[in-house]
């Protein structure tokens, strides 16, 4: 996965994406026990386009030029299917802005904060998101004050309280 992250860093350096961070199950795995996933979810801030639309077209094109091909909803980058998800709301924009800078072996990268992963799971609201919240609460040493702020800013407190009741 290190080579995959190196490609993501090049995309950011070249301005193809403005910022990226690992999310989804692999980010949860950073904070908790490993969980099965077949995709690497990568949240991205895309450069501003004239029409203001969130489109992954230019990103996919840049990857094609580097020899990485799409497979369904993912792009296979150095043996890892990467699913790019543009930041489509305020919570994701905040999560990307405040993502943790880490190193994967020798390569710098970013991973969403555990508190944002929990809030995103609440916002998404599927059964597997409830399981993610349970896992993060159990193993991720959440900063409860920080989490409370995230939940309040994005109107997620009521759902959170129902989920943990």
């Amino acid at each position, binding site marked *: *996965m*290190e*080579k995959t992250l190196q490609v993501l860093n090049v995309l950011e350096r070249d301005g193809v994406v403005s910022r990226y961070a690992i999310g989804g199950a*692999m980010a949860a*795995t*950073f*904070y*908790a*026990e*490993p*969980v*099965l*996933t*077949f995709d690497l979810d990568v949240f991205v801030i895309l450069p501003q386009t004239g029409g203001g639309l969130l489109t992954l077209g230019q990103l996919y094109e840049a990857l094609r030029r*580097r*020899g*990485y091909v799409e*497979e*369904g909803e993912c792009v*296979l*980058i*150095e*043996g*890892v*299917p990467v699913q790019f998800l543009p930041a489509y709301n305020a919570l994701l924009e905040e999560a990307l802005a405040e993502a943790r800078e*880490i190193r*994967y*072996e020798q390569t710098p990268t970013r991973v969403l904060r555990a508190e944002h992963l929990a809030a995103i799971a609440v916002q998404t609201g599927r059964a597997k998101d409830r399981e993610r919240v349970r896992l993060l609460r159990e*193993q991720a040493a959440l900063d409860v004050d920080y989490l409370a702020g995230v939940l309040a800013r994005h109107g997620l407190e009521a759902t959170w309280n129902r989920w943990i009741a």
Partner: protein
Amino acid sequence: MESVDRLNPEVARLFTAKEERRRQLAALSFPDKVRLVVQLQQMAAPILRTRGRDARVWNLDAKSA
């Protein structure tokens, strides 16, 4: 669900050991966890394929494109 302290002591011991194992897994380095995820993929992929799902196991040693 029955609480652990009301279970047969042997079963309770097994549950406790399982929790401890999960804590140990959570404390591994990120690269070690990724290697375990790939092992999970290797275990799960054949089962998922029999159900018609296209499950690709990550190739962490892939050659550059």
